[in-house]
């Protein structure tokens, strides 16, 4: 009897829903689900990207990926050079109706920089914050630091009252074994709010009618529908069950382009793919390490046919790179992008002049679930190197297996992709990859190199508040990276989204992050 009632009730509901006018609900078929509704508890840029529709930062990227005011209207650096004062936007409310104030900013910054937060690295210079009045916040840094705004684009602002009420002031600490309220619930200021969530099946977002900004989108909402299997995702797009995917598989692009109801949006990602070298005394085989010699690194670069990889492995969709950052990234300069000449004979000559023994064997570490066609271009490079008399041992495994080997120095040559996210500035790879490994710097300096001259430039850039001067310092530093061939850039990888004809506008962003508040439907 009870069951019957439920049935009747749901039938009635279905009729009601059917009677309403057709909604513009965009169905986003992603290649995976978000981890939870809490952007601060797992360092996953996709989760942060999706939740950016619900939560906002003090500043945000506009359509051209330039920083513009969001929850903060203006800012200035105070006379001590290390305190930034933000004037907050008036009249903003959270989805639960609470007004947005300075206390919310202070509590959110405290939450993200908590010891238990896996995201605290996103605010490297942060020391403390303080509410000056209801709509003014002072953020104190550990020194002069030019990139605070870049960092803040990804720091989502929570409602302090809501967090206090639900005991969510601290991020979920998995080590402590306690669940957090924010894992299941979301309350931001953004253009959409979360209506319901079924993990791995469907998360429904509805338009926030009270949004402070004038919407450029015309959506009533969107559904995030994870479809892990690439073939199924393509099928769902062809049958119109999803109207957008931010991961159209490269091998299926011709099929999608041929379909009458689907358009493919192709572009080049900001992610630069590079080869890194060990700078330790010996290789993993205990042989002497020849890669510390710049001539050897240069020879290995000359031995790679970048054009062939571009044509055959990347199917002509990548952008061949000579610089370690992509052109749209501040700090890039065209002269850094000069390509090496492919010359295997010269490479062989240089290797023998440098005293590299014929048939030198070394580990070449690649990731099977990493970059676009990584396994294939690794195989291509390995065979190109074999042709100049080396014997690379290809080691392909998932990221979770390879990363510990790399951080502990148990590998020789490796592939790394770097998109400079979330900072979108050349300072990101300079600090994280090319700087000597010490303290917070050089976390991804897996080869263990150290160039004091380079460090000096990076440190200077890291405290230079004048934009022109800072970018000049960064370009100079990238010049040293290039001259020393610390890492060998290969290409910027291709990216492809696809939409059905229901969608009339979906701006493609080179950081590969969908921003549906710019999307429109017919």
């Amino acid at each position, binding site marked *: 009897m009870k069951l019957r009632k439920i*049935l009747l009730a749901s039938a009635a509901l279905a009729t009601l829903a059917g009677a309403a006018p057709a909604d513009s609900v965009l169905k986003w078929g992603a290649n995976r689900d978000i981890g939870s509704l809490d952007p601060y508890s797992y360092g*996953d*840029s996709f989760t942060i990207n999706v939740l950016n529709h619900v939560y906002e930062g003090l500043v945000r990227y506009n359509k051209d990926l330039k920083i513009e005011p969001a929850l903060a209207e203006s800012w200035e650096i105070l006379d001590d050079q290390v305190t930034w004062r933000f004037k907050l936007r008036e009249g903003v409310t959270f989805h639960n109706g609470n007004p947005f104030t300075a206390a919310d900013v202070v509590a959110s910054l405290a939450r993200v920089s908590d010891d238990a937060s896996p995201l605290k690295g996103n605010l490297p210079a942060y020391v403390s914050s303080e509410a000056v009045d209801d709509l003014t916040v002072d953020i104190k840094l550990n020194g002069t630091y030019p990139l605070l705004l870049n960092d803040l684009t990804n720091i989502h602002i929570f409602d302090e009252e809501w967090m206090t009420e639900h005991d969510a002031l601290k991020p979920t600490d998995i080590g402590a074994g306690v669940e*957090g309220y924010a894992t299941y619930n979301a309350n931001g200021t953004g253009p959409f709010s979360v209506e319901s969530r*079924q*993990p791995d099946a469907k998360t429904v977002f509805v338009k926030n009618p009270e949004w402070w900004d004038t919407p450029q989108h015309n959506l009533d909402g969107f559904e995030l529908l994870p*479809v892990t299997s690439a073939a*199924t995702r393509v*099928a769902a797009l062809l049958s119109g069950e999803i109207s957008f995917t931010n991961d159209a598989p490269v091998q299926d692009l011709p099929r999608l382009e041929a379909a009458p109801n689907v358009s493919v949006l192709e572009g080049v990602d900001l992610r630069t793919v590079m080869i890194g070298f060990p700078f330790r005394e010996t290789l993993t085989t205990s042989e002497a390490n020849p890669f510390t010699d710049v001539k050897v690194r240069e020879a290995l670069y000359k031995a790679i046919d970048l054009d062939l990889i571009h044509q055959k492995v990347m199917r002509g969709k990548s952008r061949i790179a000579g610089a370690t950052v992509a052109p749209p990234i501040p700090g890039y300069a065209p002269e850094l992008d000069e390509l090496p000449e492919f010359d295997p004979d010269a490479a062989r000559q240089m290797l023998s002049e440098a005293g590299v023994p014929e048939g030198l064997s070394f580990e070449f570490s690649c990731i099977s679930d990493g970059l676009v066609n990584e396994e294939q271009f690794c195989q291509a490079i390995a065979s190109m190197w074999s042709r100049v008399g080396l014997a690379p041992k290809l080691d392909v495994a998932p990221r979770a297996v390879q990363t510990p080997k790399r951080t502990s120095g148990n590998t020789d040559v490796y592939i790394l992709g770097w998109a400079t996210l979330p900072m979108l500035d050349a300072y990101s790879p300079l600090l994280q990859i090319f700087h000597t490994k010490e303290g917070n710097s050089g*976390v991804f300096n897996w080869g263990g190199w150290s160039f004091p001259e380079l460090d000096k430039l990076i440190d200077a850039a890291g405290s230079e508040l004048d934009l022109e001067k800072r970018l000049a310092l960064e370009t100079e530093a990238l010049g040293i990276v290039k001259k020393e061939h610390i890492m060998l850039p290969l290409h910027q990888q291709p990216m492809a989204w696809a939409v059905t004809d229901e969608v009339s506008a979906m701006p493609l962003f080179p950081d590969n992050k969908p921003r549906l508040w710019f999307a429109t439907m017919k």
Partner: protein
Amino acid sequence: MLAFLIKRTANAIFVMLAVAFLAFVIFRFFGDPVEMMVNEQATQSDRAELRERLGLNDGFITQYVRFVVNAAQMDFGISYRNQQDVTVLIKDRFPATFELVLVATVISLVVGIPLGVVTAVHRNSALANVLQTGSIVGISLPSFVVGIMLILLFSVTLGWLPAFGRGETVDIGWWSTGLLTPSGRQALILPSISLSIFQITMVMRLVRAEMLETLRTDYVKFARARGVPRGRVHWRHALRNCLMPVITLTGMQIGNLIAFALVTETVFQWPGMGMLFIQAVTFVDIPVMAAYLMLVSLIFVVLNTVVDITYAWVDPRLRDDTARAGGAHG
């Protein structure tokens, strides 16, 4: 009987402990969960600190013992990736997998048994030969290929059925069911067919073999000689005597189906336990992987133990010879 029960239960517990032990030996080769949890800008010391807090620096024996002690109190910890209680996560996903397996089992019986009878009764006909050959294809096709082909045909070309997902579900207590809504039932069709293909061919071949045996027996010949109609003899008298092994095997196979549903679940984005497990492997979510493996081995152990106990109850000889009973299905 009591001694047998105690021995069998002890056996089951030992199997579970062994599974957990092996799991923890293997987890070390899955990689480092911390590298997946923190973002790119985290410093080395942040990473080390998190690793320490999660207890990943302890030896695997220590981790294993800690897991067993907690698991004995039904505490499987918090998922690294989802930050949710693992018991709740699995409990939420179980109905999806169970309904899929249940429907697949029903399909395999409803389709497999008649096919088995037909191929046995008309064993030299063209139809039987086609079915026999078809069953070899069914047994050898990997289920993800079957799944993709079904999607291409029924979702893309014909547009009849959804390509992925579970449709609308209705909650009855903590159990969520898709059987009560039209979209839920539609969504169930393709995944359950793809999961049942192997099962159908297995049931069909088993019924065929049993039927061939039964059709040779005296009572069948006798019934035919008495003039009982052919159909009645085959479908009623002979078939009944073939069903015992089919039911036993189907029961045992439920464990297998739950475990192997993960392939089907991945292809159809079915939000069940298999999907959860696959994601846990990608993100080295150790608490989820451990709990899932324990649950699957529990299902196997329970099914086997129940079967053993039933056999022992039916056949007293097995009760005396407990050593043999222990080895047969453990």
